[in-house]
């Protein structure tokens, strides 16, 4: 039977620790050496690449801009030839580390609307993703960006929030956008609370949360230390609480 790719997207307000959680998830997923993991850094700040200790060669937006420039110069190719070229360039932009492939979306710089180019790139990213067992997208705050620039459908949409009212409100807004405005198709949705100082905070938030709480991570000095020193989260100790919590969430979601 053909293997099915599982797709997870992480969203949330800036500064809530989305990228650290994404990196810990990738670390846990990639420990299964029989699996191929595609990590997509959809945040223009390309923080996931730093969190994984990986240098990127080029971003999807570099490829997009090259294509737009060649179109502007009047160079034309058939759709099939263009798709094959994008496929080649995208694989070249993939940074590989063990069984992990990392793709950075980057920041769009060209002005104007190039919906056709975006649509071709999205098709190619989706085709590439089918070759992996798990795809994890570290998204921007806005869930619509995932749909517009990466892919239309994900299996698990995970909101990350700290315990602030602002963070939880943003997560609720994302939920509303995804659910009611159909900004992205998903099969399951949940939230991870990050930087929890006291378990009572979790209980308070959980009672008013319109989303399933998948788990929570305490304020963690080790995460801060890894962030501060720019150390790769792939080296994060397995026995650390944050790592164990993320592993449990992956198991509960039956991602593997």
């Amino acid at each position, binding site marked *: 039977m*053909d*293997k099915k790719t599982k797709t997870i997207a992480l969203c949330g307000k800036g500064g809530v620790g989305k990228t650290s959680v994404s990196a810990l998830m990738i670390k846990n997923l990639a420990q299964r050496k029989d699996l*191929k993991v595609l990590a997509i850094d959809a945040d223009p700040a390309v923080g996931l690449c730093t969190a994984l200790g990986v240098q990127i060669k080029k971003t999807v937006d570099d490829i997009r801009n090259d294509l737009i420039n060649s179109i502007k110069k009047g160079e*034309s*190719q*058939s759709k*099939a*030839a263009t798709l*094959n*070229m994008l*496929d*080649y360039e995208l*694989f*070249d932009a993939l940074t*590989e580390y*063990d*069984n992990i*492939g990392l793709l950075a979306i980057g920041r769009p710089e060209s002005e104007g609307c190039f919906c056709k180019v975006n649509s071709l790139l999205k098709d190619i990213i989706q085709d*590439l993703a*089918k*070759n*992996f067992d798990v795809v994890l997208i570290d998204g921007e705050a806005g869930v619509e960006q995932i749909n517009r620039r990466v892919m239309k459908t994900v299996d698990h949409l995970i909101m990350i929030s700290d315990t602030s009212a602002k963070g939880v409100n943003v997560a609720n807004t994302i939920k509303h956008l995804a659910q009611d405005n159909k900004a992205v198709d998903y099969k399951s949705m949940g939230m991870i609370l990050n930087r929890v100082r006291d378990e009572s905070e979790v209980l308070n938030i959980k009672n008013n949360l319109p989303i399933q709480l998948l788990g929570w991570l305490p304020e963690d000095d080790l995460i801060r230390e890894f962030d501060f020193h720019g150390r790769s989260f792939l080296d994060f100790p397995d026995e650390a609480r944050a790592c164990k919590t993320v592993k449990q969430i992956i198991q509960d979601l039956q991602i593997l």
Partner: protein
Amino acid sequence: MELFEQTFSDIRNYIEGKNCRFRVAAEQKTPWPSGKGRNVVLSDEMAVELGSPQMNSVSCLIWTENRNLICDGKINLVGPDIKESNGQSLPFGKIVLAEVSGFDEAGTYDKYKEMEAVRYSLDLKGYMIRAVSQYQREWSRISREAVQKGFSFKVLGSALREEYLKKDYIHAVEILFVTSSGEDVGELQEITKNVGRTISAMNKMLSEIDPDCDECEYNDVCDEVDELKGMRKTRDEKRMNTNG
């Protein structure tokens, strides 16, 4: 001059002049499992890489209606075979020579595009291909598991030939693989440079709405090759009829 006539002759001379490691007959039915549509080979599981973006690479397909120019089923290899290259990244050249029929001014470019798509339809477990026809580049990877199970240029060439022969207008296929050195691949790039220009000329002639032939960078190719002259004439006639 017939399309690619000179290139056929140059490639034949190239094959004769190089120390061909083998010239084998393709298998009638390739005994290789399908990758079930999952054909990404990451460097972690890779045994051999051919024509990566950091290496010299050339890949093209040329066709003729002259049966005598093709040795059907022959797979020529200049350089080491896949199992002898374990752990290496090699320069790569691949030329497909095909005997075809029914290529006329109206259908040649569409048939070329169909033939061009054939390599992407190969679904061999442990074999990954990425290619850009505009630049005549082809980049492939073979997994360690595939090499252990005997993946070779004979397997690849036979599978490729089998795919091409599924087209009812392709009757014979011969393939040349080059892995010996960047210089040998560079020599092949020189030989096939005009193939790329000819295809680009066809693309421009047939995809642009109103190309100006006097200003066109491929003017010289279109003036020299009979098939292109014919295609241009057909296009101009169509345009005149449309304009009344």
